[in-house]
């Protein structure tokens, strides 16, 4: 694993030996590469040639007071993150797009363009992604000097424009309010008959500005702030954030805390997977399946309550460990509840594997080919359903995952059915992990005291959330308040998969296809 990573850094170092590009190993992940607004493409080309599984994890835009930094966090197959740092001037910030090299970057670039005003020359999409249509043109919320009081809103464009020239096309708007979407986002589908010809996404309807809000709160407060980004994978957010801060602090977390965190993370995964497996049933009109799954999800929330005192948002993690220990007397109870769930699994597995009407709705629906999954930088079960075996828990083990045996589940067919079956099998793996962790729970303290003031520095971190790789970048300026917190949620990375697979499909397949990505717009709109 580490061999490939060192190789890549070596390749970079030899390739860019006598150029302006500087390679700094072991900074911000595996390495940091200092480039400028055009050489960054050369660096990316080298990385892409070295491994087909190279993908963009995130693009961070950051206001560096005199300039604007655009940091490309590139995920190399198994070797962690390589960050390409570029800077553009504050007046007229322009940088060449990388979306022609790797199409998945386009979506990330649009967000940076919206929030920091960087123009990505050559990005195929125009128009806004996150900000509302009537947002003023010259205010960029994530810049430090953005004046957000007394905003003068533009005149909003008048409603939806019908596609012109194409007489057979009907525009069907899915969202912001739609029964198939539990949260508000908009997808304008261009439909010919029952066939989808195009999709225009528009997100940001519940954008809460968490990244900006985190800058004005202390690190300790931020733990609870980022936890509220998502109701379902809340522990993943908290865990990813505290790990990033611990990396800057160089705090070593006691082993017991690592195990407890692992248990909580896997409970999150169980909760999320059972929820979405049931919700998929609802989307294809299989209400019975939905009711059954949600009933069996209840004990998972009860276990979370036994451990942390809270059913949903556990608020149990803190910098340096966890806030409460697992009571030894509760462990047999938890194990019994997990064993009961395990007994139900063969039934569900049979339904997802064999039920004819379910297969008719899910087989060959929204097929995402492996090459597309790689090019679009897809993460999590969606990528694994297309045969891409990425899983942060294995690729870059965090917490106790390095010590716990488990399998990475993949399927090759890449359709909705494959994605749901990946989740189905991961439920069992999660139960295994929790049981193993409970059996091998180390003794000792469950937290160490961490200082409130974080020394200047920066770090990136990844966590395998239920929906895929969750990415955090934190920059500290030596105070108790972070300088920048960047969150890239798995759903944000996976929306391009929907845009790709919906086209050419039946309009009736849109909900099933969409739910198979397990979309969480609360995550997407931080």
């Amino acid at each position, binding site marked *: 694993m580490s061999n490939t990573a060192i190789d890549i850094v070596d390749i970079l170092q030899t390739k860019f030996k006598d150029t302006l590009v500087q390679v700094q190993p072991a900074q911000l992940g595996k390495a940091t590469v200092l480039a400028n607004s055009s050489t960054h493409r050369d660096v990316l080309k080298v990385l892409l040639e070295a491994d087909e599984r190279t993908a963009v994890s995130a693009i961070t835009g950051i206001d560096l007071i005199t300039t604007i930094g655009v940091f490309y966090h590139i995920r190399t197959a198994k070797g962690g993150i390589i960050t390409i740092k570029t800077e553009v001037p504050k007046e007229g910030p322009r940088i060449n797009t990388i979306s022609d090299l790797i199409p998945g970057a386009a979506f990330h670039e649009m967000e940076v363009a919206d929030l920091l005003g960087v123009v990505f020359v050559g990005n195929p999409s125009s128009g806004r992604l996150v900000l509302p249509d009537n947002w003023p043109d010259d205010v960029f919320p994530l810049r430090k000097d953005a004046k957000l009081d007394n905003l003068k809103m533009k005149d909003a464009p008048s409603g939806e424009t019908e596609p012109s020239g194409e007489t057979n096309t009907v525009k069907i708007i899915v969202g912001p309010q*739609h*029964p198939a979407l539990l949260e508000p986002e908009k997808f304008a589908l261009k439909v010919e008959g029952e066939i989808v010809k195009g999709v225009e996404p528009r997100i940001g309807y519940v954008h809460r500005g968490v990244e900006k809000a985190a800058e004005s709160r202390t690190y300790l407060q931020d733990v609870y702030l980022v936890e509220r980004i998502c109701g379902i994978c809340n522990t993943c957010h908290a865990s990813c954030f505290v790990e990033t801060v611990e990396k800057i602090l160089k705090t070593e977390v006691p082993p017991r805390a690592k195990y407890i965190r692992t248990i909580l993370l896997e409970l999150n995964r169980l909760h999320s997977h059972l929820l979405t497996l049931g919700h998929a049933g609802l989307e294809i009109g*299989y*209400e019975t399946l939905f*009711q059954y799954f949600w009933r069996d999800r209840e004990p998972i929330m009860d276990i979370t309550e036994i451990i942390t005192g809270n059913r949903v948002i556990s608020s149990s993690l803190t910098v340096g460990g966890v806030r409460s220990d697992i009571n030894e007397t509760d462990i047999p109870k938890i194990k019994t509840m997990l064993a009961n769930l395990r007994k139900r699994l063969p039934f569900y597995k049979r339904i997802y594997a064999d*039920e004819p009407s379910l297969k*008719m*709705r899910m087989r060959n629906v929204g097929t995402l080919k492996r090459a597309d999954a790689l090019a679009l930088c897809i993460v999590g079960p969606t990528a694994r359903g297309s045969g891409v075996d990425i899983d942060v828990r294995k690729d870059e083990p965090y917490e106790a995952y390095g010590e716990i045996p488990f399998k990475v589940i993949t399927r090759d067919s890449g359709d909705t059915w494959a994605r749901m079956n990946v989740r189905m099998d991961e439920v069992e793996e999660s139960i295994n992990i929790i049981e193993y962790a409970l059996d091998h729970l180390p003794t000792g303290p469950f937290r160490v005291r961490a200082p409130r003031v974080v020394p200047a520095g920066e770090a990136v971190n990844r966590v395998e959330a239920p929906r895929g790789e969750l990415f955090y970048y934190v920059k500290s300026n030596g105070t108790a308040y972070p300088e920048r917190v960047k969150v890239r949620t798995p759903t944000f990375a996976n929306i391009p998969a929907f845009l790709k697979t919906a086209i050419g499909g*039946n*309009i009736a397949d849109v909900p099933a296809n969409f739910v198979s990505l397990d979309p969480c717009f609360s995550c997407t709109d931080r």
Partner: protein
Amino acid sequence: MALDAFFFIRVLIFPGFTFILFFTMFCDWVERKIEARMQNRVGPAVAGPHGILQPLADFMKLLTKEDIVPLDAKQILFKVSPIISFSVLVFAMSLLPIDGSSAIPDASFSGDLIFIMALVTIANFLLFLSGWASSNPYGSIGATRVLTQFLGYDIPLMILALGPAFLAGSLSIAGIAAGQFLPFIVLAPWAFVLFVITLQAELEKDPFDIPHADSEVVGGLETEYCGGKLAFLHLTRDVQIVFGAALVVELFLGGPYGPVFFGVPEFWYTLWFVLKLLVVVVISEYLTTLFARLRIDQVVTANWKILLPLSLAAFALTVALGVWVYPMLV
């Protein structure tokens, strides 16, 4: 027929309008309760004992709600089609022999099977119009789906209904019900199974409930409806389900005639009819809970490529057995 008190009691109270209305609501409750129990839920539990009054409560609640008509809607069509559709279905119901004869006295004539099926098609078409008139994209798509589905499934349904008609040697429903020396479910089980499946599609129930796919078309043709008109749309759907079940009872389960029979014949006829109908409702609801919803193209394919040839084959088999084998049994 004489327009006397007897006529009005039969048409308006029993076994006519009032009976059909409350029986429909009862069936709705049975459906909801069964579905809930199968899905590990409680189901209606508040209004009345075991929530038996819940359908009535829902109906009353909707009647008290504000009734909004969208400005863009085709006003008259939008307003009247739910009520006419409901009326047509209740009229069709009152032509069926419920307590031995139909609610409208002496309404039975030879060929009323065709007439009743035509009435149901008209009721469905009115439902389509109600969605179409609402000038809402979801309403229009939902309405078009209703049309696509019932136009397709009417054909196999009709063909399958002809099997019992042939066996009984009559095209009148009363004649078919009375002509079952053995219930036709025993003589032609293949036709019964196909009929129930086709009916599931006619009634837009899972796995064929695409006009009601809320994740795709929101409320379907009901999207723009609220208040009293929505109440009638819901009621229409419930009557449709009861009517479909009643058709199965008349064609395959021996109608209102049963093995136990003494005293007041009307009582026993009604009892058998109701019991048989509930069995059909339970079967239909069982299928609904068991399956996921198919896609519209799959539903249409299933109709033309599978159900139509199968129903023709079933009819041929029924006729063949009816001509050469069954006469030997009698």
